[in-house]
């Protein structure tokens, strides 16, 4: 069950499918908040051609599982799915998806926002941007 809720994968994912899977786990879910991060074509004024994500296999999944468990403990929510793509990602493509299901919406919003902040803070995933000026590993995150 958990393995399906936490994924680091090269393939794309479907928001629809993940939302439906989450809803299927409990009829008590009345509100779902999704965060979808996609590859933008501009970053700090620089045109970007493509993005590559590197990750620490094992440790990245472990951190995402910890984030999910902490969110389930700290917020009044029912289920959480976290998926992060790695490898080469073209402009406009999906990068990350967080799906949070709750009985009431306030906690779903808070938990989803917390999960993506925490993901950026503690998950060993790195981003390489290919721009007209060359390749750069992104150091700061917004």
């Amino acid at each position: 069950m958990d393995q399906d809720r936490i994924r680091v994968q090269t393939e794309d994912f479907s928001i629809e499918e993940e939302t439906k899977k989450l809803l299927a786990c409990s009829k008590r879910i009345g509100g779902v908040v999704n965060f979808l991060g996609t590859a933008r074509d501009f970053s700090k004024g620089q045109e970007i051609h493509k993005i590559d994500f590197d990750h620490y296999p094992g440790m990245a999944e472990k951190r995402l599982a910890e984030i999910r468990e902490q969110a389930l403990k700290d917020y009044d929510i029912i289920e959480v799915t976290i998926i992060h793509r790695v490898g080469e990602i073209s402009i406009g493509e999906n990068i990350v998806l967080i799906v949070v299901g709750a009985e009431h919406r306030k906690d779903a919003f808070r938990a989803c926002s917390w999960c993506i902040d925490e993901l950026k803070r503690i998950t060993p995933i790195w981003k390489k941007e290919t721009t007209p000026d060359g390749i750069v590993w992104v150091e700061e995150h917004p």
Partner: protein
Amino acid sequence: MVKVKFFAVLKGLVGKEEISLEIKEGTSLNQLIEQLKADLPPLVDIMQKGGILISVNQEVLEKDAIIQDGDEIAFLPPFAGG
């Protein structure tokens, strides 16, 4: 023997993805870093610049932590997921 992994920008700068090396009993992360700097000169600048976390068996630890035979150490540049 411990395994040492380098990710993202470090992989390119150090020129290696993973190395194995012998450590003496009671070696701290700080001592390991000094030992590695001698073998991999680019690490000197990188570590001085700061912002690099070090994990032992996939947990980030302080640099005075003692490592043991069989540990998996990793040098982690600032994260940029999401």
